[in-house]
């Protein structure tokens, strides 16, 4: 058996299906409670937004389209005046603490100067306006969040040593701090008080507080999150602040935090699966010079609790078509669960930001004696379906465009978007992640269909 191969990266044509990055609006507006997202672009974008997040549109969401019309495209109308009119209405109707403009392909192509207009309107309206260019020309799906987070980074208050010293007294009493910056001074005695850790990545509040708890167990307290629950509670950033990502698609944010805000990046695998969570915590502990405590026992305990799911998937094969950048971490977790991964398709691979994760993947393959999967950047869906036809994986993790057609060709599928919306981070949620992965496989064994229902498509040519 070949082991510890160096990962090979391939790059295909980029003819693959994924969501438009503006879809990040759908989860970010829920995360940042006092925000309003304004997507500037044409009807195409609006149609996507109204269809993709499904019923959420009916819950009076805090997002809307600034729909460009012919006059905007041909510059008969003045962009600034138009945006001013729309933002005034938003201010009157919803009174948000921040308006986030999402630039789309349209604004890119007609070179609308959103970054230039925003500061002017900001002054006029008295509401912060953050500009994020989440367009399909440059980005895929979850990278939309990356652009928003990177843009928000510039709005975080400056971390200041002096003011934090005054808090010394009550800093000891702080327990879990979700969003309020808990700036403990670095020169205070005791290991627990030396760290100033800001985590970045949008997680549901309960998952975020689970992660806080997880690191607090190791006497490392989290001083803030980016994005925070409210825009007005953004964490302080600056020299001496350590930052660590919780999601693999946040490379632009990481770069901005390091270069523009002078933060120290903790390069760790991502806390997906018990193995990932442990490696993540260990890396954080290492940085803060804290001796990790009871992590191994805890991981083993989690694995033991997962045994019923592991029985189902051990030895099964999986194929990631790739659309949301979570693929490397999920593949690593699933290999550790005993699965064979044939291919990891991924829209974009940042080898520096994901370095620790890639290394863990390599070690996991070695440990589990599994071949290193091929990593395909910018995959070509047509070729992938041909390959899947050859390989016949037990499970394909794929976008919604291919799920039903593949099912009809007797390849079990799992919608990849669910991993973006479900709670899969931290040891606590390992069960939820496996619940998703095993669902198609569990369903099959319960199926009442006979063998003659195996292939339900009349089409002979694929794709």
């Amino acid at each position, binding site marked *: 058996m070949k082991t510890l191969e160096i990962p090979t990266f391939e790059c295909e044509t980029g003819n693959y299906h994924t969501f438009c990055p503006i879809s990040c609006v759908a989860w970010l507006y829920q995360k940042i409670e006092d925000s309003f997202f304004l997507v500037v672009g*044409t009807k195409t974008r609006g149609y996507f937004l109204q*269809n993709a997040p499904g019923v959420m549109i009916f819950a009076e969401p805090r997002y809307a389209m600034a729909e460009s019309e012919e006059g905007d495209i041909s510059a008969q109308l003045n962009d600034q005046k138009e945006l001013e009119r729309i933002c005034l209405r938003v201010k009157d109707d919803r009174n948000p603490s921040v308006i986030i403009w999402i630039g789309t392909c349209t604004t890119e192509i007609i070179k609308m100067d959103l970054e230039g207009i925003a500061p002017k309107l900001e002054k006029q309206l008295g509401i912060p306006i953050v500009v994020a260019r989440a367009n399909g020309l440059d980005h895929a799906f979850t990278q939309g969040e990356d652009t928003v987070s990177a843009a928000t980074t510039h709005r975080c208050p400056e971390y200041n040593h002096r003011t934090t010293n005054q808090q010394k007294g009550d800093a000891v009493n702080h327990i879990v701090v979700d969003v309020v910056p808990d700036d403990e001074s670095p020169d205070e005695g005791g290991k627990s008080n030396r760290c100033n850790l800001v985590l970045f990545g949008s997680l549901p509040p309960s998952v975020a507080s689970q992660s806080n708890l997880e690191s607090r167990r190791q006497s490392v307290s989290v001083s803030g999150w980016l994005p925070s629950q409210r825009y007005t509670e953004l964490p302080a950033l600056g020299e001496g602040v350590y930052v660590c990502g919780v999601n693999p698609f946040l490379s632009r944010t990481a770069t901005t935090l390091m270069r523009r805000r002078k933060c120290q990046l903790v390069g760790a695998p991502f806390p997906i699966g018990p193995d990932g969570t442990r490696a993540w915590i260990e890396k954080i502990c290492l940085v803060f010079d804290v001796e990790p405590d009871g992590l191994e026992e805890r991981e083993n305990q989690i694995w033991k609790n997962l045994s019923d799911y592991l029985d189902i998937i051990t030895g099964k094969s999986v194929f990631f078509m790739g659309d949301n950048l979570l693929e490397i971490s999920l593949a690593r977790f699933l290999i550790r669960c005993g699965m064979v991964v044939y291919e990891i398709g991924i829209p974009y691979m940042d080898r520096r930001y994901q370095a620790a994760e890639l290394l863990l993947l390599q070690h996991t393959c070695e440990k589990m004696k599994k071949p290193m999967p091929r990593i395909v950047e910018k995959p070509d869906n047509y070729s992938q379906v041909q390959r899947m036809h050859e390989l016949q994986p037990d499970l394909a993790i794929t976008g919604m465009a291919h799920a039903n057609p593949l099912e009809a060709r007797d390849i079990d599928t799992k919608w990849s978007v669910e991993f973006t919306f479900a709670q899969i981070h931290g040891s606590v949620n390992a069960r939820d992640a496996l619940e998703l992965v095993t669902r198609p496989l569990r369903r099959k064994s319960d199926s009442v269909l006979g063998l003659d229902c195996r292939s339900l498509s009349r089409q002979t040519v694929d794709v």
Partner: protein
Amino acid sequence: MKLAYWMYAGPAHIGTLRVASSFRNVHAIMHAPLGDDYFNVMRPTSERERDFTPVTASVVDRHVLARGSQEKVINNISRKDEERHPDLIVLTPTCTSSILQEDLQNFVDRASLSSESDVIPADVNYHRVNELQAADRTLEQIIRFYMDRARKRSTLDRSVTDAPSANIIGIFTLGFHNQHDCRELKRLPGESGIAVNQVIPEGGSLKYLKDLPRAWFNAVPYREVGLMTAAFSEKEYGMPYISITPMGISNTADFIAQIGKLVNVWASALPEKRLNYKLYVDNQTKFVSQAAWFSKSIDCQNLAGKEAVIFGDATHAASITKILVKEMGIRVSCSGTYCKHDAERFNEQVQGLCDEVIVTENHTEVGDTIARIEPSAIFGTQMERHIGKRIDIPCGVISSPVHIQNFPLGYRPFLGYEGTNQIADLIYNSFNLGMEDHSLDVFGGHDTKEVSTKSLSTDRIDINWTPEAESEPNRIPGFVRGKTKKNTEVFAKRNNIPEITIDVMYAAKEKPSP
């Protein structure tokens, strides 16, 4: 710029893609950035389509912005040509390509030199037309292309069929109940001795388009899609067409009467004598359709004078208005459509049937109108259903845009005689649901309300929740909150933990549920 939260009709390219992918063996290539191929998701999920959607994107990225598409589009066309051998490739413009102003015709000209498939660019202006207009236009464009070509090659078959026959035009993918309507429509003339020559575009094959003129007439069931094609065929090939929507008893009778008129023109040439459609209509109305009887029954009497608001596409909103008013005696306070381009005709159709007419693409305007009128029931799109939910008024969905629940697997036509039955059910159930809810409220609700509780009420005394943990479940989505609380308490009891902290909660979550 326009502030918009929701749109009734989608962008133009969606219409083109719907028509193109309805035909058999036609492939569409979109000139669009990554992520704009969202149509690929709609078909497999909404219609539960089992085959790969024949739509690919020729991706517009930074390089395309800088240097133009150059060979990219052409390569993508040739590649699809080799991979799938489609009969036709439709190059579909999107808002992006219309802003970039790339010369799609040029790509098409060059690509057709090397590819075996026919290649045409869809001729739709993104900013001027919506989804429905684009679909109408694209359908006409394809039909015109193949009929004109057949005429040039003298393969066009202009001899009408021996027995009377019809083309059904405008049934297509993601259309509201289109599949079921199609089946019903085939049956309707079939029973009166008329064969169906071709159905387009759904399942239609381009090879047979040259035989379109063999039909005696065209039937266009929906106003939104197919009229342009029918008008073109009439002008160029002298084919008459019927544009009445056979929805509701009287409309269906009109539809059949029209068929009778068209067919009996040829009566002298027919082997049998004049077809008697009146007898057929009579029989169907009285005994096959239950709707006429329903209108007389005591159930329908109870609905008399109740108020309703109707909103949808022009076809469905106008027909349902007519049914409610003329066939059931219900008062339509407001009838409206989002098909602004067809406003004139819509006004004409509902003239005198309702108190007010509303033509708008703005859902808040519709919502405000409904709130002001407070009808007993709404008949509208998915959006009106949600408006109804918010203000507690039942809603029957009668038109696109719709969700997956409006692509039922069971047989649910809106057209023809079976359609009248379905519509009667829909209308009666919507009103009745509202009345039931109302009387429940009057009598104090279900008397079991207090008893059914999901927490372990008897064991609760032993277990304390720390305030911190107490607030935690509020962060969990409502529908699993109860279960999480219960599981935590069971876990705590089993492990003799007297007080529930956040740690205990997560410890409980890590354990497999009992």
